[in-house]
């Protein structure tokens, strides 16, 4: 049983809820009333499990990173979400939600994407289910994550570049919400992280919890214990963190660490470290930590990593911070780039720049030699090659 859950109105303690305009009420209400019943039904579970296994390639390996462990003088395991079909944890959520959307009789899928991983995952499951797919993506992200834009197009999705705000993830969410307001009847909004109005944070956390479910038995097989000493995950909205923390939330002996994007440093304006710099506010339908100015205007975030370039964070993570259940750190662009480069050279694995923020923490914290440290390798770095190579001067 999980004590850290949402209440009936969708709150984790103070955070969460459904702060939506009346235009979205019927859609959100329909989801609130139906998601648990559908998620727990035997047919849904069976279908999702078989898709996760045969289509997405789960379970993903738990890999003991020998050379990394030697270097950092502790025991480091990588949960290989990068090896899923489409190359990131986002597919776990996309598969679950597309089945839900189909069950609700929706015909058209919309999504936002930052790094493009959620967009690709959504375009993929839409192709698989024969559903129409529109993906909103900040115009800046369209440029810096080009390979993913091309994948989405090949998969048959229409990608709409968003030119408001900073042309990044927040602006893509705004446009997706506007689309949903204008198409309330046939459209399902397939959100990519544990953000948005209730029930999305809980829905996405449940769908990502497959990560920690597997981690339990994989660790038992490898170490004889089903829990590690520490788990580290990067946080944009917080879905890969929520997924790998999920089954350990009520096990206080497991240290949970979330790593935000520091951008150029949390003492600069160019950062996306929401917990470090934010205050309680309302963004995208949920009460949570938000980066904002003295007038309550949302500030434009910055990170080299498109998937972490977001001025909010899921309400579950705000709650974990407030309850001191998880620790939060911010790692900067250069630290993430260096960590990506290091993993490539040490282990032959090119991580997504998002995941590289979690890896970078190893340079900041020393873990005891006999500890088991699990890092969520949330995605692979193919999409970031250009950015990593261009910045290679920093890393060598």
């Amino acid at each position, binding site marked *: 049983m999980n004590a850290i859950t949402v209440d009936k109105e969708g709150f984790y303690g103070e955070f969460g809820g459904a702060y939506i305009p009346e*235009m979205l009420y019927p859609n959100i209400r329909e989801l609130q009333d139906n998601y648990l019943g559908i998620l727990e039904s035997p047919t849904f579970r069976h279908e999702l499990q078989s898709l996760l296994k045969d289509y997405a390639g789960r379970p993903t390996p738990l890999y003991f990173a020998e050379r990394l462990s030697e270097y950092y003088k502790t025991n480091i395991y990588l949960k290989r979400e990068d090896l899923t079909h489409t190359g990131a944890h986002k597919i776990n959520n996309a598969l679950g939600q597309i089945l839900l959307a189909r069950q609700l009789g929706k015909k058209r899928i919309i999504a936002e994407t930052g790094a493009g991983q959620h967009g690709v995952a959504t375009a993929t499951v839409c192709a698989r289910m024969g559903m129409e797919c529109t993906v909103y993506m900040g115009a800046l992200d369209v440029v810096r994550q080009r390979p993913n834009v091309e994948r989405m197009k090949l998969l048959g999705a229409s990608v709409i570049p968003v030119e408001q705000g900073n042309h990044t993830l927040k602006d893509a969410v705004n446009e997706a919400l506007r689309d949903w307001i204008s198409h309330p009847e046939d459209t399902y909004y397939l959100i990519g992280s544990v953000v948005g109005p209730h029930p999305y944070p809980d829905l996405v956390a449940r769908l990502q919890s497959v990560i920690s479910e597997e981690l339990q038995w994989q660790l038992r097989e490898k170490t004889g214990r089903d829990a590690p000493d520490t788990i580290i995950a990067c946080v944009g909205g917080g879905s890969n963190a929520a997924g790998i923390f999920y089954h350990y939330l009520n096990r206080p002996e497991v240290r949970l660490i979330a790593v935000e994007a520091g951008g150029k440093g949390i003492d600069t304006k160019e950062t996306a470290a929401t917990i470090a710099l934010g205050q309680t506010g309302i963004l995208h339908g949920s009460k949570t930590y938000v980066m904002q100015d003295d007038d309550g*205007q949302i500030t434009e975030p910055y990170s080299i990593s498109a998937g972490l370039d977001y001025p909010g964070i899921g309400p579950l993570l705000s709650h974990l911070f407030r309850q001191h259940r998880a620790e939060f750190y911010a790692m900067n662009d250069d630290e993430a780039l260096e960590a990506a480069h290091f993993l490539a050279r040490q282990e032959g694995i090119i991580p997504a720049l998002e995941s590289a923020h979690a890896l970078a923490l190893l340079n900041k914290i020393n873990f005891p030699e006999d500890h088991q440290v699990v890092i969520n390798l949330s995605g692979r770095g193919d999409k970031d090659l250009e950015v990593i190579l261009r910045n290679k001067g920093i890393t060598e």
Partner: protein
Amino acid sequence: MNRIDKLFQTKSGRILSVYFTAGYPEINSTIPIIRALSDNGADMIEIGVPFSDPVADGPVIQHSSSAALKNGISLKKLLNRLKDIREITDVPLLMMSYLNPVLHYGMEKFCRDIHETGIDGTIIPDMPLEIYTKNYKHIFRGYGIKNIFLVTPQTAEERIRFIDVEGEGFLYVVSSQSTTGTKQVFPKKQMDYFKHLKDMQLKNRLLAGFGISNRVTFNQACRYLDGAIVGSAFIKVLENAPDIHTATHVFIRDLTGRS
């Protein structure tokens, strides 16, 4: 008596409420716009507090909002500018804002300060009825501020009745499934929806908003409802207006057919 209630007591039908974004086109435009609207017969005025992420708004208000923020307006500065507004006009004034700037300002302080300024009501699109009722209603009531709720073509009849019971001032009838913007004419579907609302015999007065842009749509709204709210169309006019007063005069004349 609250000026909104008084308006509906003294006038029935063809009520015109006009929305504009504070701080747009210039940071100093707010008072001249209110004066122009008031002088030219607007029955009610909605002062929009710009927000960085206006998800319920279409391109025109998105643009005016970001321009106003660039001009440097904020809720604090706006209230400061509105200090003496009741010396200029007696027209009911509403403040429209997204929830975050209001919460950041402080809900109690917000209600107190707008009450002192002479604002009669609020529209906060991302503050749902349930959250208002549970957390904030007592504050609004305490200061006599009417918080206006929305109903949409998607709102179930049962919920419309619920909103009508809880709602005050008037109900904001979102005309169609879209964000704010302009439409040339409403199709039959919208007219049926307006008529249906009228036939429900609700306790609150009904003003249509979202999409009203010209005399055709204004008249269509007024056929079954008590009046209409115009926003984007007015902002577009302000954008190119050499003189706010003249532009407002022409706009209201053309829209309502009043002379």
